């Protein structure tokens, strides 16, 4: 998976991360922080491998 433009998104009314906004193979996604979600597993793998960084939330 080619993951680009990754950024944390906060909950509108809470100081809590809601999801990760990113493009995966060119398509726009909001990825939940769920260990069973295939996209999230790949994001974690790429972060651990030093291949991806995620921009902090606004």
């Amino acid at each position: 998976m080619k993951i680009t433009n990754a950024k944390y998104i906060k909950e509108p009314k809470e100081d809590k991360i809601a999801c990760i906004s990113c493009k995966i193979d060119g398509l726009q996604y909001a990825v939940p922080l769920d260990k069973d979600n295939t996209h999230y597993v790949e994001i974690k793998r790429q972060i651990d491998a030093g291949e991806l960084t995620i921009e902090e939330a606004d």
Partner: protein
Amino acid sequence: MPLSKITAASISDNSVTTAKVADDAITGAKIENNPTIAGNLTVSGSFAPSKNTSNKNMLINGGMRISQRNGTSAVTVSAAAGVYTLDRWQLYTNSGNYSVQQITDTTLPSGFLNAAKITVSSVGNTSGSGNAVHFEQKIEANNISHLNWGGGNAGTARTCTLSFFVKSSVTGTYSVHLGNDNDRFYIATYTIDSANTWEKKSITLAGPSDGTWNTGTGRGLEIVWVLLQGSGGTTSSLNQWISTSQTFASTSTTQWGTNAGATFYLTGCQFEISSVATPFEHESYTNDLAKCQRYFVMDKAGTAYKRYLQGVCTTATWTECLYYYPVTMRAQPSLGSSGTNGHYLIEVNSGASASPSEAPSRSSHSDTTNCIVNLRVSGSTLTTGANCQITSYNTTSGYLSYDAEL
């Protein structure tokens, strides 16, 4: 006449009637193992087969009817990507480009309306030992737990049969890989005898008595139709369970992906508990679609101003809308959208409207039964507490998708 002289020909037709045979005189042991009954079979008691006669197919969308993402449009899969095409079916390539399309035509095997068509757009090669082109489906572990594979449960590992209809422009011996993506893999071959002709193939395998097989919502079994494979992923250990990871094909597998313009069609894919291939289980369209929607849901615009969602403005800049999935999803899904803010419009009950300033996001309060979709507008144009709805604006290009594929 001595009994030893009595042959079937000695008994005139219809002379042995039911009344002349004592109750229970003919035991099961006296009936051949695989009888063919020319007429109808009526069972007045309970019918207790040793395997499922419905819901027997562990592959989903084996008839290639469901294509939520692309409909009948061809999608090109480029190198170094695994892309879901028809529902539940993924094409992986790291060598060459290939198009995948749901097709229908009059040459399909009897009873089938659709097939997956794969075409070589840009040829691959086997110069890299890890090069590969795979058309595959990953089966959820929940759906194979009854096979007793791995020896974890009581009972023996069940024998299963994979069957499918295939048509290719390139004849030869092809490979199929079945494995748990962990420590047990089975590579079998089948031969395409005639170019551009539908042929039915089947592969029967005894279940493995060991190995680490998942349970639950994770990956259970991968079934891979190999269309190209570099030498690093090949083996001569066929038709047996092996533990060598990243092994997918026979050393003499046909390198279909190296042929410019080659085509490969597949339909009627079935994986069942059985020692023989039984007829394909044609399920209702509703069942097929619902099974696919556990892994992916597409909500396409279709028409301008389609109403995607309704909800509430939680602040002057944020809306929150709730979507209930058609079925419980395998995992919390990713929320997909077109990537173009102008494809969406927020309408509020005051009559005002606003365009979102960023792509839709999903709340962490969502789960596997529903998704809370958040949309933000620039400025403070919304009225807190007002009802709102998300529409497709004046376009048919937008969509919201929910992706929990394996």
